[in-house]
């Protein structure tokens, strides 16, 4: 963890400015609240921009394909459908450090509540048929609407995760306290209610 140096810095150091850390943020099955909290970092975002280049993010990048050689990837949301799964597997392969970012990624949280129903059929039935006011119809568009997985899973049950940042959402202070040391190649201290508390 402590050896988290920007990918570009692997080469012998030169007089140039240090290469920026390649940062990605990913939004799986979640409400985007963690990303909103991320944006609440306010002026720290400027410091962040100095040290890091956002190479993939729903809030700061237009890229549709997850890039190679990512140094740090924050993942919001649980893994609920095949698209989530595919992206999770990809980002793991292409990122040196993966952070479970917020309660949905860490515990499956609210998206996971559908696990109380047995399987995707029951979920769709409940959502699109039983609760429909009119025009009840099951969505079916192969290749367009991603298939639901049998169960919603927290990120670490799908890919290895290096760091957990719980919270619903994690406060901007908590995010900063976790990211800031990482930008300097240091492991953050994730202890105590300020850093760990769920909810």
């Amino acid at each position, binding site marked *: 963890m402590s050896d988290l140096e920007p990918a570009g810095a692997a080469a012998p150091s030169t007089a140039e400015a240090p290469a920026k850390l390649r940062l990605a943020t990913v939004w799986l099955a979640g409400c985007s609240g963690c990303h909103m909290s991320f944006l609440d970092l306010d002026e720290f975002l400027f410091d962040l921009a100095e040290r890091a280049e956002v190479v993939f993010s729903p809030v700061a990048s237009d890229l549709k394909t997850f890039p190679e050689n990512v140094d740090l990837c924050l993942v919001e949301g649980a*893994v609920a459908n*095949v698209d989530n*799964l*595919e992206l999770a*597997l*990809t980002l*793991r*392969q292409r990122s040196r450090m993966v952070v479970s970012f917020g309660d949905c990624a860490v515990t499956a949280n609210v998206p996971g509540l559908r696990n109380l129903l047995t399987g995707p059929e029951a979920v769709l039935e409940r959502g699109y048929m039983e609760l429909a006011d009119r025009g009840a119809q099951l969505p079916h568009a192969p290749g367009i609407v991603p298939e639901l*997985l*049998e*169960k919603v*899973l927290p990120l670490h*049950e*799908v*890919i*290895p995760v290096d760091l957990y940042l719980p919270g619903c959402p994690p406060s901007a202070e908590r995010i900063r306290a976790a990211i800031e040391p990482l930008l300097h190649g240091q492991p953050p201290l994730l202890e105590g209610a300020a850093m760990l508390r769920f909810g």
Partner: protein
Amino acid sequence: MPVLQPETPSRQLRCCGASGCRSAGGEALLAALRTARDADAGAAAGLTIKPVGCLRLCGRGPLVACDGPEGTRLYGAVPPEHAADLLAAAREDGPDAGVARAALEPHRLDLDEPFFRLQRPVVLETCGQVDPESIDDAFAHGAYDQLRRVLAELTPKQVRDEVRRSGLRGRGGAGYPTGLKWDTVALQPPGPRTVVCNADEGDPGAFMDRSVLESDPHRLIEGMAIAAYAVGADHGYVYVRAEYPLAIERLRLALQQARRKGVLGRGIFDSEFSLAIEVRVGAGAYVCGEETALLLSIQGQRGMPRPRPPYPAQSGLWGAPTLINNVETFSAVPAILREGGDWYAAMGTEGSRGTKVFALSGAVRHTGLVEVPMGMPLRTVVEEMGGGVPDGSAVKAVQTGGPSGGCIPAEQLDTPVDYESLLSLGSMMGSGGMVVMGETTSMPVVARHFMRFSVNESCGKCVPCRAGTVQLAELLDRFVEHRAETADLERLEELCGMVRATSLCGLGQAAPNPVLSTLRWFRHEYEAALREPSHCEPPDSCTVGADGETRGYAP
């Protein structure tokens, strides 16, 4: 005295009427014998047909022992059609005796077989000899002689000294020194005390205590009465599991007879000693074999164990000092007092004195009950006495100690059977169930079998047992279904260690043992169950199983 052979053989047919033989048609055979005798009153005169308890080789039931001056012949798997032959064979020199014996020859069991020859009956000395429903027959076999003598001649302390000298240890599983336990109860501050017999024999594959209860309940009652005298109790309970209806029936009958004969009640044998014993029937909860849970169940509550100390010896039923021993422990007491503690201590090993009853079952040729001196090599019990696996293939493992025990691999079979040796192999003595497993048995499947048992029987009070066993069973599912990863193996071991160290009672503490012991001796089977390390190339090559199973990413 050799097993099953009466000292003074009169001409009789002894029919096993214990559960094992009943399940094999013993009642029909007994009825057929009686009908045949009645139909042939003259010829069968002088011949007793006697229902007795367990004749040991349960797997060949129904069993009949045919006694005469020329010795005892044992027949097994006898269909009722052979009733007349049995009668003829039992008669002295009747004209048909030879023919009948020839007809019965295929059913003849050799009492010189190691299964019988190597037994050393102490607890079971009258089992199969005495009619369990007749106190007079029990008297004739010496029942209550020791109680009478003890009350007349010995102080409670002398009784406890004798038991301590015998080196007897609790036969329920943990092996706590019996004499020490008795002393602890006896030396509590003055006040009422209770004795409790734990007959909640719940380990699957264990039926020793049931056999004692069904075969000679008076021996247990005598043992309990002696114990009650030794610790100063005037009240006792026998807690029997409801799954043993015949044992309950016979025990209740025996208690009734004992009361009527003045063996229980006020001023027993003209002494100052009084004792009342009640039967309490369980209702299907394995955890009630744990002593604190058992006490709550006797008090009409949920059988949920509580932390010890205080131990029941200090604070048990209704807060009074309570002595709890199991059936086999109490039943060893009359013989110990008759022959002396030193006699008993001369059998067995340094740390484990005396004899132990085992229920031998599973993939073994001779299924049934054996009583052997402690320290006998496991191999002797399983291969010589048990005759090995029926199809002649090799023994793979022997499971002892039930859901709290472990699987001992074939290469360790030369280990002597005693408390410490079995513990050192990662198993335990337990109550005496011994289940033999052949080559076809998969160890992760066995481990899951026991874990599911523990899940089902956990009382739910403490978290490690209530939730930990569920997680362990799920982890084991992954191995059985070949979808486990290396990390699962670590998690399995770590969680086993945690559940063992932190559970509140013995059930939870021992629940991981079947996993840990199979991991220790058959680790390769777990490793072989790991799924191929996947080298997923997203997106397509890493398939999502139908069950949404998506683990397995290896970076």
